[in-house]
């Protein structure tokens, strides 16, 4: 952008200085098949000249068939239609930076068919002077691959490779290092507290069904909580609004109690179904909070408007509240009403961290590699761009273009 404006400035400035010269035909005029398109279009290119200015007009004259004669197809002021940075990546640029580029698409006035050769020439006129360029010929073809988007393809393929590799790695060793997550440390504290107060723990799995990643994460974390609860034998209450999720949670908890060596302590009725209706469910859970005053409330999974009503009541009863959700529209409310909140991806990370399920761990790792790479590009790229401007060089575009979105 900037470069272009500087360039334009120079050109027009130059034009202003020069005394009105006798017209010269546009230099390096060529017509060619438009690159990276579905056909039915031609591209015209010619060199920028210091004499370009808005009073000088460039007319495009073309001929459909050898028999017919040339007719005017389009007209532009001579100081327009420059190639700006960002128009084309360096690897598929039909003409030099700052030269003229015009795309001629098939229209009623001038239909273009694929595979047929068209002759085109330019007429430059200023005031009463005018001059023709020499005729150039080309045929239009549809392309099989859009080279301008090759960086997009490479990115996608590379990410696929990384993902598969890290999942494979996680299958071999699911215990790769993942960072501690503050919210999870709080779980221990919350359970301890409710034990000494002799009050129950309330655990909600959110409004999603078993196909939601966040609900799956919620059930995984429930398993972990249940294990700890089994040790302390505190009562754990899990009200549900989806029968399938409830069934899964029962299994998860039974399993957890067995692992904790306390199968006897497991109570079938700690998971119970209330209703599938959003607000009635919320009202019922609020009722439980007010009657039984749980010492700790867990809100894991995906939530909608009900989040406010739940956490507000919980805060009122003075319970420790731990939330974890990927419903970004509810996050602000969870952060302000709960003591700890697992934010978005932290919830997934937590479940991978606890379950050590290879696919979960592998995916998390794969995305981490991706993020690391992007962070690198952002910092390194900014450095290059800055240096590029300082020392006035275009050279770094060979790198920077790789991370731009071209069409």
């Amino acid at each position: 952008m900037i470069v272009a404006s500087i360039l334009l400035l120079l050109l027009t400035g130059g034009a202003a200085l020069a005394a009105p010269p006798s017209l010269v035909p546009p230099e390096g005029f060529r017509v060619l098949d438009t690159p990276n398109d579905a056909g039915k279009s031609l591209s015209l290119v010619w060199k920028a000249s210091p004499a370009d200015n808005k009073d000088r007009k460039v007319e495009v004259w073309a001929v459909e068939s050898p028999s017919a004669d040339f007719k005017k197809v389009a007209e532009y002021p001579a100081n327009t239609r420059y190639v700006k940075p960002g128009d084309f990546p360096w690897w598929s640029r039909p003409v030099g930076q700052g030269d003229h580029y015009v795309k001629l698409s098939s229209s009623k006035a001038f239909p273009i068919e694929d595979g047929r050769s068209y002759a085109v020439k330019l007429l430059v006129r200023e005031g009463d002077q005018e001059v023709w360029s020499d005729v150039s010929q080309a045929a239009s073809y549809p392309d099989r691959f859009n080279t301008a988007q090759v960086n997009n393809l490479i990115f996608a393929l590379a990410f696929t490779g990384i993902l598969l590799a890290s999942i494979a790695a996680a299958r071999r060793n699911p215990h790769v290092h993942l960072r501690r997550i503050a919210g999870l440390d709080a779980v221990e504290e919350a359970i301890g507290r409710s034990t000494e107060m002799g009050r129950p723990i309330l655990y909600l799995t959110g409004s999603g069904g078993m196909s939601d990643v966040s609900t799956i994460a919620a059930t995984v974390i429930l398993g972990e909580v249940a294990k700890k609860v089994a040790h302390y034998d505190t009562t754990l209450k899990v009200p549900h609004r989806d029968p399938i999720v409830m069934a899964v949670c029962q299994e998860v908890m039974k399993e957890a109690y067995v692992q904790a060596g306390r199968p006897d302590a497991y109570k079938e009725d700690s998971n119970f179904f209330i209703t599938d209706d959003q607000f009635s469910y919320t009202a019922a859970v609020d009722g439980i909070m007010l009657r039984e005053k749980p010492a700790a409330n867990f809100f894991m999974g995906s939530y909608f408007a009900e989040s406010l009503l739940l956490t507000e009541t919980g805060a009122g009863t003075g319970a420790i509240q731990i939330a974890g959700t990927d419903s970004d529209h509810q996050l602000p409310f969870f952060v302000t009403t709960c003591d700890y909140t697992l934010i978005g991806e932290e919830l997934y990370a937590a479940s991978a961290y606890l379950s050590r399920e290879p696919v979960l761990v592998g995916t998390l790792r794969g995305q981490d590699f991706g993020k690391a790479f992007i962070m690198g590009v952002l910092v390194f790229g900014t450095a290059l761009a800055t240096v590029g401007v300082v020392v006035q060089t275009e050279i770094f575009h060979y790198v920077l273009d790789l991370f731009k979105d071209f069409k």
Partner: protein
Amino acid sequence: MATETVLGAWVAAGLTLFIYSFLYKDNPLFKLGEHLYVGISVGYSVVLAWHEVFVKQFWTPLSKSVVEAPADPASYVLLIPAVLGLLMLTRFVPQIAWLSRLSFAFVVGFGSGVAIPRTVSSYILKQIEDTVNSLVPTGDGGFSAFMNFALPQSGVNTIILLIGVVSVLFYFFFSVEHTGPGMVTARTGIYFLMIAFGAAFGYTVMSRMSLLIGRFRDLITFSGAEYGYATLVLLFVTVLSLAGWEVGARRKGGEG
């Protein structure tokens, strides 16, 4: 004013108040309104799905093309999606439920496929492209332009943006502990996050209040004389029935 309009006003005002009765506590009036809402919107969806999809998108074009060119197999191409669609409904017949997998495979496959390159283009490359900028002042204006906070593209804002994006990305980076310099970056990230959440918070409040304003405007309109004071009358009725329900519940509670 037309009878159906007045009637409509009464119905609308009544249902609105039924829903608001939840503010007192969960009660039958609210449940009634809520279930009416679900029922009616599902009914509406069925009717539209039929006319807009089955008739307009499928039946009319198909019959048209078949009439025009009965011999041309291309005229029957719309049967493919129809069959795939019908297969989905086999979900309800346990014996052949697996057939639905074929159409889900088709849909989900297409969805995942088209999503990948477009996501990379719009949500990753385009975002990187706009974040990577020169930090030194370019063009005219010099330092003052560089320090211009009001202009989102100014140098100083570019730096802040870069810091924000990188630190937040780092906060959601799980392969290294948040210690030492990592700690600093992560803390920066979390504060950026909190500010953004704050903005979201403010905007959400704004939204919810706008909805309330919208409903209240209707209620005010419907309380006019030309609507037979619908809102006021119905408000009275609602309160009365709530009280009645409350008393009834108390008595039951007393017996039980």
